[in-house]
């Protein structure tokens, strides 16, 4: 067994680059148990050293406020890695050491990777690593993670650190008289009572009590309620003392002293600056243009639009390959398998299901590549910065814009990558509200139905209506987000106290690894569930099939038709330039089969659901045919048009060429412009397709939210549709 090495450090410190440099392609991405924080693991082997490398989430501190910080802390405490490599950005030493100091207070075997020394040097910052090492009492190795420079030296130092058999280094900072005295006293109680023994150093526990750390205090209460109460009483006494004398809470005092300690340390010859640390750097000059009041939003619109274009246009060709491959396989099955249930299951359930999952892969890959570029260059943080004012008003975050755009904020996106793009949000509540509202956007799969109905009933205002429906989707998503943030996802906004990292050129290797690992995760996790649901939906649309006598009646009718036709007409049916008699026969046969399909669909479980719902759905104007098409839409929204075709006995309707369906609807007395509007509204807002639901469940970490979105969205959509349909009928608008 190789020793475990944990990589820890601030976001933007080059931690991921170092992880990639150490483990190469041998990495595994999963989640920490029970939470949605990504856990990356890999293996390092070189020069006689072997390590199991775990990449901890990037954090600025180790409080219990954010999930990432809690996960990192718990991992370090419970898993006790042999060595903790702390990546410290040399060009941003002061703030990075704030985390280092907290690792040392936890008594961890730390080894510092002083990263980006090249950037620091360019900024006129020289760091005496030997001096830093001796002052902190831990090894310090200079690295440039992007190029892998210093990697081997770092691993040698880490190995030496891992094999040291010694007591954890005792490291302590003075927090001023009041706190220090309390720490000593509380530390003694903790040791005497073996309180939370073995898990944390005693001084650290006392410190966390003084910082009012909810996690540690609740752990302490369940371990020894009496001693915990004694500690809490002491903390209250200290708190009231420091707040009356210094007008500050102990936790504030502790943070201030930590920075004071680091400041003093750096002044002892660790750092030499050639320029003022707050001087204007290249990155700031770029920001003057990119976040400029007038140019900034324009450039941002262009960048976001380009991301959208590139994602959807470059994935078109590979999606075509995937589709033609599955079309080919499906064709093979069609040709070589006997008609029957097995064939139907294989084609409509399995091949279409797997094809559906894999069809999204190119899209997801390009989306993640685009986002990785925005993220790694530092531009994503600027987008959040510029748009936060708008999105914060709806209880969201500036970064919510990317998921919304990718999800169909510019008509034609896709909710699946949109939901996955919400990962870039670090604020949990804003993230949840974002991923729950992304499916309201008009994704590409909703467009065929909209185009069909608008084209049939409102052909004069096609462009205007498409635009209005896009605006409506945005308004709906933002309004629902606001509603959610005031009810089920309520809570104070996550502070926007964020770093704007300097602009950097991303590395190709980093981008590719990033893109691939996320795509692979989608294929692996979503794939299995989606296949299962796809088979289930197939079964619902297929079983119980036609009753014996009905099927026999159709078979007899078909046989009679063929028997009545002369032999030479039958022979010509398969030909391109068949005679008029043969074409008519063929058409008649197709009509018969389409009718059979309609009856079978109506009799299926899905059809029965459609009929069963009719009394209620009538309020919105939907009959069983529309119901069943919309039920089918839960499998994939593009199915709505083809199911509608089957329900209207038109056989399989290609969603892209739905002229025959359009004629049928226009001629049907059941349909009106008002009903079309009601159906469009419902289809925009009702339950997301199940691929989206599965992604939501994965990203939110709970089935609860998947179920919520199905029920809530459908209720909302139905209310809207009823409102519009009944309102329209009342006022006699749009032929209602």
């Amino acid at each position, binding site marked *: 067994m190789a020793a475990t090495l944990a990589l820890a450090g601030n976001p933007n410190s080059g931690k991921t680059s170092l992880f990639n440099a150490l483990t190469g392609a041998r990495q595994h991405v999963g989640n920490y148990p029970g939470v949605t924080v990504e856990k990356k693991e890999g293996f390092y082997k070189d020069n006689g050293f072997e390590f199991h490398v775990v990449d901890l989430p990037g954090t600025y501190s180790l409080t219990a*406020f954010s999930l990432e910080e809690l996960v990192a802390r718990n991992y370090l405490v419970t898993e006790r890695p042999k060595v903790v490599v702390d990546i410290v950005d040399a060009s941003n030493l*002061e703030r990075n050491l704030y985390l280092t100091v907290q690792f040392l207070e936890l008594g961890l075997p730390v080894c510092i990777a002083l990263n980006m020394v090249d950037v620091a040097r360019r900024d006129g910052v020289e760091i005496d690593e030997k001096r830093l090492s001796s002052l902190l009492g831990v090894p310090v190795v200079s690295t440039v993670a992007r190029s892998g420079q210093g990697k081997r030296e770092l691993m040698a130092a880490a190995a030496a650190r891992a094999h040291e058999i010694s007591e954890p280094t005792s490291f302590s900072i003075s927090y001023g008289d009041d706190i220090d005295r309390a720490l000593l006293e509380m530390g003694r109680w903790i040791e005497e009572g073996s309180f939370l023994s073995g898990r944390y150093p005693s001084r650290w526990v006392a410190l966390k009590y003084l910082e009012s750390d909810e996690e540690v205090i609740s752990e302490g209460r369940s371990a020894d309620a009496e001693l915990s109460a004694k500690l809490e009483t002491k903390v209250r006494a200290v708190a009231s003392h420091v707040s009356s004398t210094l007008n500050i*809470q102990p936790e504030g005092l502790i943070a201030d002293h930590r920075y004071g300690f680091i400041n003093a340390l750096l002044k002892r010859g660790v750092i030499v600056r050639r320029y003022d640390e707050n001087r204007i750097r290249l990155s700031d000059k770029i*920001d003057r243009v990119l976040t400029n009041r007038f140019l900034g939003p324009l450039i941002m619109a262009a960048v976001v639009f380009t991301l959208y274009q590139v994602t959807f246009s470059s994935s078109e060709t590979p999606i075509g390959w995937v589709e033609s491959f599955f079309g080919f396989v499906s064709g093979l099955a069609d040709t070589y398998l006997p008609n029957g249930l097995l064939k139907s299951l294989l084609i409509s359930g399995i091949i279409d299901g797997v094809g559906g999952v894999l069809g999204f892969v190119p899209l997801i890959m390009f989306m993640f590549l685009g986002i990785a570029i925005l993220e790694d260059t530092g531009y994503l943080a600027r987008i959040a910065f510029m748009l936060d004012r*708008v999105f914060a008003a709806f209880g969201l975050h500036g970064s919510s814009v990317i998921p919304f755009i990718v999800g169909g904020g510019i008509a034609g996106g896709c909710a699946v990558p949109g939901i996955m793009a919400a990962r870039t949000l670090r604020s949990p509540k804003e993230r949840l509200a974002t991923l729950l509202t992304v499916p309201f956007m008009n994704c590409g799969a909703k467009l065929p139905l909209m185009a069909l109905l608008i084209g049939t009933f409102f052909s004069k205002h096609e462009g205007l209506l498409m635009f209005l429906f896009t605006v409506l989707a945005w308004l709906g998503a933002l309004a629902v987000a606001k509603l959610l943030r005031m009810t089920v996802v309520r809570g104070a906004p996550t*502070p926007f106290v964020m770093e704007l990292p300097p602009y950097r050129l991303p590395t190709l290797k980093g981008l590719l690894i990033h893109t691939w690992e996320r795509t692979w995760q989608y294929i692996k996790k979503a794939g299995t569930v989606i296949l299962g649901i796809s088979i289930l939906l197939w079964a619902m649309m297929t079983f119980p099939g036609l009753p014996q006598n009905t099927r026999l009646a159709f078979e007899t009718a078909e046989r009679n038709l063929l028997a009545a036709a002369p032999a030479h007409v039958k022979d010509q049916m398969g030909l391109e330039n068949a005679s008029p008699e043969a074409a008519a026969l063929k058409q008649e046969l197709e009509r018969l089969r389409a009718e059979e399909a309609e009856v079978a669909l109506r009799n299926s479980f899905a059809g029965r659901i459609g009929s069963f719902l009719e009394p209620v759905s009538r309020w919105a104007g939907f009959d069983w045919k529309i119901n069943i098409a919309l039920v089918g839409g839960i499998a994939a929204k593009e199915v709505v048009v083809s199911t509608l075709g089957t329900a209207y006995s038109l056989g399989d309707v290609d969603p892209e060429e739905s002229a025959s369906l359009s004629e049928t609807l226009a001629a049907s007395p059941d349909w009106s412009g008002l009903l079309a509007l009601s159906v469009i509204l419902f289809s925009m807002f009702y339950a997301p397709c199940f691929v989206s639901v599965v992604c939501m469940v994965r990203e939110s970490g709970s089935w609860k939210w998947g179920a919520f979105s199905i029920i809530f969205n459908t209720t909302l959509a139905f209310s809207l549709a009823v409102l519009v349909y009944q309102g329209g009928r009342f006022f006699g608008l749009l032929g209602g």
Partner: protein
Amino acid sequence: MAQIPMRRLKQGQSAVIASISAQGELGRRIRDMGLNPGTSVKIQGRAPLNDPVALRVRGFTLTLRNSEADFILVEVE
């Protein structure tokens, strides 16, 4: 030396943090990112809609919303 809320600082203006009245998570975030009393800050820019604001502190750039800056009092020359 006058003490004013950080929100009122103008573009390019420098100041020294006098006190922070935020508590709980916000208070911790502000302090963890290095905004402590005695630290000097400089307004680097504002978002197109005037909010949030970008500050230069301890050699890096930090953003915060105006509503969050209201908890910070600064001293200006």
